């Protein structure tokens, strides 16, 4: 299978500090690639560059053979890229349902004039999006919170709301930044299943997560960053045995735990 997304020598600096340097890897459809590494390794920054939030200082992002480096996020979204955030980015004054519906923006949008005039077409588009969003909320276990203002939901619920919104885009590439943060082991497993399901439908998934159980369970491939550079790469078993990874990230005890777990 050919690459859906390929990252080539990506790098960026902030005030002289190299946050990410020369990182390359590729992701194929249906594959779950995890990016792990110590705090401050550059994982979120990498996501920000891939999704167009930051303009990379070096390197290329290639999506389906097209160079999309530094492209605006909303244009990337049109090409099938979608993401969640480590620091929650929700629309607090809208209901959970409306938050999820915004994920359908690209599918439901139409001419402003039609929207202003309330033409039947515009209304039908809005209704379809709403139905889809409801189904997605149910999928992440938030159906009961649909009509609540998102600003009033607990942290864990919001994490899941972001996933629902990201899924609404029907992405080809999905970037998840610590989706299980703030969820307990059981809740994390639910998210596991969800991610696996999505990947099974052919979506390429890029995952940042510190919950090693989860990472080891669902990743096809793992990229390890440290100080902005790729220090290791491979399948879960290989990576978790890599001494450099254990020293920099897993810690001895934990590393062994998971290697055997």
């Amino acid at each position, binding site marked *: 299978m050919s690459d859906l997304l390929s990252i080539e020598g990506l790098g960026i600096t902030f005030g002289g500090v190299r946050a990410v340097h020369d990182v390359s890897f590729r992701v194929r459809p249906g594959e779950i690639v995890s990016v792990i590494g110590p705090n401050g390794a550059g994982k979120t920054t990498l996501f920000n560059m891939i*999704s*167009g*939030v930051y303009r990379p200082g070096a390197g290329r992002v290639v999506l389906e053979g097209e160079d999309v480096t530094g492209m*605006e*996020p*909303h244009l*990337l*979204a*049109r090409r099938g*890229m*979608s*993401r969640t*955030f480590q620091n929650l*980015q*929700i*629309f*607090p*004054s*809208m209901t959970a349902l*409306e*938050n999820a*519906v*915004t*994920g*359908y*923006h*690209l599918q*439901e*949008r*139409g001419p*402003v004039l039609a*929207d*202003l*005039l*309330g033409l039947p077409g*515009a*209304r039908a*588009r*809005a209704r379809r*999006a709403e139905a889809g969003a409801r189904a997605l909320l149910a999928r992440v276990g938030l159906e009961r919170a649909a009509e609540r*203002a998102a600003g009033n939901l607990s942290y864990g619920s919001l994490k899941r709301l972001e996933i629902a*919104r*990201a899924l*609404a*885009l029907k992405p080809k590439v999905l970037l998840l930044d610590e989706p299980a943060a703030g969820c307990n082991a059981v809740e994390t497993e639910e998210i596991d299943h969800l991610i696996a399901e999505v990947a099974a439908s052919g979506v390429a998934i890029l995952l940042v997560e510190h919950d090693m159980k989860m990472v080891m369970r669902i990743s096809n491939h793992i990229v390890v960053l440290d100080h902005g550079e790729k220090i290791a790469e491979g399948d879960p078993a290989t990576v978790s045995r890599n001494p450099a990874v254990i020293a920099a990230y897993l810690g001895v005890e934990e590393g062994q735990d998971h290697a055997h777990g």
Partner: protein
Amino acid sequence: MKMTPKTATLLVLAALIALTPFFFPSGYYYRVGALLFVNGIAVTGMVILTGYAGQISLGHAGFAGIGAYACALAPVHWGLHPALAVVLGAALSALLAFLVGRPILRLKGYYLGVATLGLGILVAMVLNNERQLTGGPDGMEVPELGLRAVLKGWGLTLSNGEFWYFFCGLVLLVGAWLALNLYASPTGRALRALHGSEVAARTVGIDVARLKLQAFVISAVYASVSGSLLALQNKFVTPDVAGFMHSIEMVTMAVLGGVGSVLGAIFGAGILTLLPQVLTVFAEYEQMVLGLVMVLVMIFLREGLLPSVLGKFRGKDE
């Protein structure tokens, strides 16, 4: 079928416009009513810009000024019919908003505030200084719209006050209808989304810059139409219509009534239009009372008058 908030709002508005005249003892009340509707139109535009999209403007009176002076200048200088002048004003306002919108709307919060403030002041300054064209600070006369005569020809005889009351009321209804359509539409939702988090809005595919620009242009048209109607009914216009105080007044009306909802904002327009008329009994205390009312409403009904009151009434958590 359950009544949607949109139908409810429109019904309430229509009923108010149609029924209140039965309690009017004199033409003066038509005048105040018409002013209220004119302000209501401007404020509905603010709802789209500020309430939906979360962008503030301290210079919208500039667009009202363009709308107003279009009605004064176009008929005199280019022989355009006043009704077409309204359209011309709206088009010019939209054009100006479109041209300056993109760079200005990149700014956030108070920086956006000062930029729009500057824009409004520039417009007011041109109207004030280009005396040969605009009559300068003393203002200039505006020709008669002429619609009243047309109606008369159709057998509908209205006094000047009545005509402007119902005409402005009708325009307000249309304006409110459009804004309400927008609210729940995909565009409206996208606007409200970028209000919450721009980054998230961008990553779900919302072209934030373009959408903000659309909201800015639409609200500029509202302000422009409101300025035109004011000029046409006053048959006289001064640069005050484009002045800083008028901009502030628009924002205040919207926020006071509840900038998140059309009905709320129109309610706010009502309050600030009626208050000075009511406060004349306080004579020299008028200004103090006005300031105090603004402060107290914002302290005790911080979502704005109407939403807060309705919220309490329904006893429902937001």
